[in-house]
C-alpha cells in the first residue's frame, strides 16, 4: 500500500463506517425534496420543454447531493481530525502534500457519487427518463465533486472551530447550491437575476449535468465545462499552495 492509497482507504472507510449518516440520510433528504416539490409543483411548472417538473428536478437533486456530500466529506473529516488532534497521524508519516490533496478530494468525489447514485436509484420510482449523454453526466459529476471536495479541504484547513465550518457551509456553499437552478430553470428568472446566476459556478455544474441527462440545457455544455474545469484548476492550485506551506496544519 502506498502512502496515498492508505490515506484514500482510510478516508473511504471513515465515511462508509457511518454510512447511515453520510449516505442514507442525504438520500432521504433529497427524496423528501423530490416528493414535496414534485407534488406541489408538478403540472404548474415546465422548465424544460417535453420534460415534466419532477423529471426536471431529479437530475438537479442528484447533482446537488453529489456536490453537498463531496463538500461535507473532506471538510468534516479534516475539521474533526484537527479538533480532536488525530490529524498528527497523517502529518507524521511521509505523505506528500499532493498525495494528501488527492486522497481527500478523491474520497470526497466517491462519497458524492455514492450518494448521487443512491438518489438516482430511489428516483427511479418517480419516473427517471434515461440519460442522453452519459459522458457529459460523468464529466460534470466528477468535476463538480472534485470542486466541492477541494472547497471542503479549504474550509477544513481554514476553520478552527465547527462554528466557522458551519458558517462556510451555510453562508457560501448552501446559497450557491440552492440558487444554481436545482429547483428551477434560470430562464424563468427576470433578466437581471439570470445574469447574476451566470456568476455562480454551481449553476454551470448543474446545467452541464442536466445537459448530459436531457440533451438540453440553459447554456452550452462546452461553456459549462470550460468554466467548471477552470474553477477546479484554480481551486486546486490554491489548495495545493496552502498544503505545501502547511497553512494552519504545520505550525
Amino acid at each position, binding site marked *: 500500500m502506498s502512502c496515498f492509497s492508505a490515506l484514500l482507504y482510510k478516508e473511504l472507510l471513515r465515511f462508509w463506517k457511518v454510512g447511515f449518516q453520510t449516505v442514507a440520510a442525504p438520500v432521504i433528504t433529497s427524496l423528501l425534496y423530490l416528493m414535496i416539490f414534485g407534488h406541489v409543483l408538478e403540472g404548474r411548472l415546465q422548465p424544460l420543454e417535453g420534460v415534466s417538473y419532477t423529471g426536471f428536478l431529479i437530475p438537479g437533486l442528484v447533482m446537488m447531493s453529489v456536490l453537498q456530500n463531496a463538500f461535507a466529506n473532506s471538510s468534516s473529516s479534516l475539521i474533526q481530525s484537527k479538533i480532536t488532534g488525530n490529524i498528527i497521524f497523517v502529518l507524521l508519516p511521509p505523505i506528500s502534500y499532493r498525495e494528501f490533496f488527492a486522497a481527500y478530494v478523491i474520497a470526497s468525489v466517491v462519497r458524492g457519487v455514492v450518494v448521487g447514485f443512491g438518489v438516482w436509484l430511489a428516483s427511479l420510482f418517480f419516473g427517471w427518463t434515461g440519460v442522453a449523454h452519459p459522458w457529459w453526466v460523468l464529466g460534470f459529476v466528477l468535476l463538480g465533486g472534485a470542486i466541492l471536495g477541494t472547497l471542503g479541504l479549504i474550509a477544513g484547513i481554514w476553520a478552527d472551530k465547527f462554528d466557522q465550518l458551519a458558517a462556510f457551509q451555510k453562508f457560501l456553499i448552501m446559497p450557491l447550491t440552492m440558487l444554481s437552478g436545482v429547483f428551477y430553470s434560470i430562464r424563468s428568472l427576470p433578466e437581471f437575476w439570470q445574469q447574476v446566476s451566470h456568476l455562480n459556478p454551481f449553476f454551470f455544474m448543474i446545467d452541464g449535468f442536466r445537459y448530459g441527462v436531457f440533451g438540453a440545457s440553459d447554456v452550452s455544455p462546452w461553456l459549462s465545462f470550460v468554466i467548471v474545469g477552470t474553477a477546479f484548476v484554480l481551486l486546486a492550485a490554491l489548495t495545493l499552495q496552502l498544503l505545501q506551506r502547511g497553512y494552519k496544519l*504545520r505550525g
Partner: protein
Amino acid sequence: MPNPDTPAISVRGAVKQYGALQALAGVDLDIHQGEFFGLLGPNGAGKTTLISSLAGLVRLSAGEIRVMGHEVVRDYREARRKLGVVPQELVFDPFFSVRELLRIQSGYFGIRRNDDWIDELLANLDLSHKADINMRALSGGMKRRVLVAQALVHKPPVIVLDEPTAGVDVELRQTLWQFIRKLNRDDHTIVLTTHYLEEAEELCGRIAMLKQGRIVALDSTPNILRRVSQRALQIRAAGMPDVLPTFLAEHLLARESGVLQLRFDRHAEIEGLLAAVRESGALIEDIAITQPDLEQAFVEIMQENSR
C-alpha cells in the same frame, strides 16, 4: 546500514519564533545512535516545540534538524521514515478498531501486510485482546499504549516519547518502560521528555535541560547529578561533642539534633569518617547514604540560570 557515526538526531541553530515569543532560542544538540536520551525542562521550556520541529509538525524559523542524517524539511520522506513519535496528547481516531488503525498507519509508511509486526507490538503492549475493539471503547491507559504502537508500526530507528507516562498508572508505566528498554537494547535510539524526574534518572544515559528555549545543561546523567550535589553520609549518634574534631568539621554539610550530614566523594572515605565519629566519643546508632537526585539537580540548574 546507516553510518554508526551519523547522529540519530542533529539539531543546529534551531530557532522558532511565534510572534514575539521565542519558543526555541538557538538550540544545538546531537543525540547519538543507540542513546537513551532525556529532554527535561519546565512547562514552556520548548521541549514539545523541539520535538514537533524534528517531526515536521512545526517549521523552524531558522536552523535545521536532521534525523539519521536526513534533513526534516527537504528530505522529509526519509526523515519521517526513521522517526516514530508518541505524542503527549491522548489523541485517537474514533472511527477505527485498534488493528484497523495500525494497518492504516502502516500503509501511511508504505508498508503492506504488516500483521506479524502488528501482532508482536500488540502482544508486547498487552493489547492483543483489544485488537478488534473500537478506539472509543478503550480506557485512557490503553489508548496511550495504542499511541506507542502507532509510533512503532514502521520500526523506526529513532523513537521520541513526549511525556508518555503522564496520567498513566504504575503497572502500565512498568510495562511501557520494559518494552522501551528492550527497544533501546535492540539499538533503537530513544528520546524521552518527562515530568517524572526519577524516570529520567533511572532510564536516561544522557540528559539535556531546556529553559526558555535554550539548553542550560547537557551531560551524562551521573555527571549532571555530580555537578549540582554530592552524596552524603548521614550519621545518627549519641553523645556527639558540641565542637567537632577538625576532620569531621571539614566534611560537615549539616548538623541537626544528633544527626550529621557528612560529605564524601569516594566510598573509601566512609570508614575514615565513621572512625572519626567513634573517636570523638560518640555512639553510632544509625547510618545512611543519601544520593543526589535529579529533582534537586533540576531545581538547582534552573535556579542557576535565573540568576
